[in-house]
């Protein structure tokens, strides 16, 4: 059965690291629920992409401080659309942030988060306004299109 038009799932949670695992697990369940033929590799790729986007919101958006992260998942034209939003400090230069090894983080982060997102998702759009937050929209098109019972 096809997903109902306009149906979506939205989850909002505080910007604490213990929620990262929940977010990627929720995305994996959403993907397998709507595309029963999705491959294990594709689900793993979604998990990595969501983990990176949520980690970025916590580390870069809010600098490990208080804030809210929103994860929205929907189905559009045979694709899973995942949006991760924060209302943190935003990204001054999105193109710079996309470059491997470029990171504003002083510790052990390697600047690979956006590299993984771009590698594992079919389409990625990052919208950011300094001082107002960041929206990362990621699209995954499962290679096998048989849909689930959702």
């Amino acid at each position, binding site marked *: 059965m096809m997903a109902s038009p306009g149906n979506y799932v939205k989850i909002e949670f505080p910007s604490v*690291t*213990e929620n*990262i*695992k929940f977010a*990627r697990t929720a995305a994996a369940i959403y993907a397998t629920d709507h595309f029963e033929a999705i491959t294990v*590799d594709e689900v*793993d790729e979604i*998990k*990595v992409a969501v*983990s*990176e986007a949520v*980690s970025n919101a*916590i*580390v870069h958006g809010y600098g490990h401080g208080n804030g809210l992260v929103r994860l929205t998942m929907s189905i559009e034209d045979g694709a899973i659309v995942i949006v991760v939003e924060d209302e943190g400090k935003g990204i001054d230069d999105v193109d710079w942030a996309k470059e491997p090894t470029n990171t504003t983080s002083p*510790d*052990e*982060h*390697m600047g*690979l*988060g956006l*590299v*993984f997102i771009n*590698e594992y998702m079919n389409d990625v759009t990052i919208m950011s306004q300094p001082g107002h937050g960041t929206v990362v929209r990621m699209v995954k098109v499962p290679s096998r299109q048989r849909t689930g019972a959702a």
Partner: protein
Amino acid sequence: MSVRTKRLGQTLLVHLDGELDLHSSEPFKQTVLQAFASDRRLRNVVLLMNGVSFVDSSGVGAILGRYRDAVARGGRLAVVGLQVPVKRVFELSGMLKILPEYESEGHALANL
């Protein structure tokens, strides 16, 4: 994520189980740092990762940090038992160009 360690001469064996991300990489990092701080002879690390089903860039960063700790002591860090999704992340991040991967704990210990 569970982190269990065992000392074998100059080598710290670290059993990891679970998913390694920004949250769970902190106890892993602290466990290795504390072991290094409490025993000056330790210089190598073998990560036994058969039970790790997920790693993202934060997990990769935490492992790279421990690799640097080992190298700073004149030692090495090796990995054992990478599951398919973990190996893909390692390959994509270039980790396997600097970290030796072995089939078993025995192979790793014999080659360090």
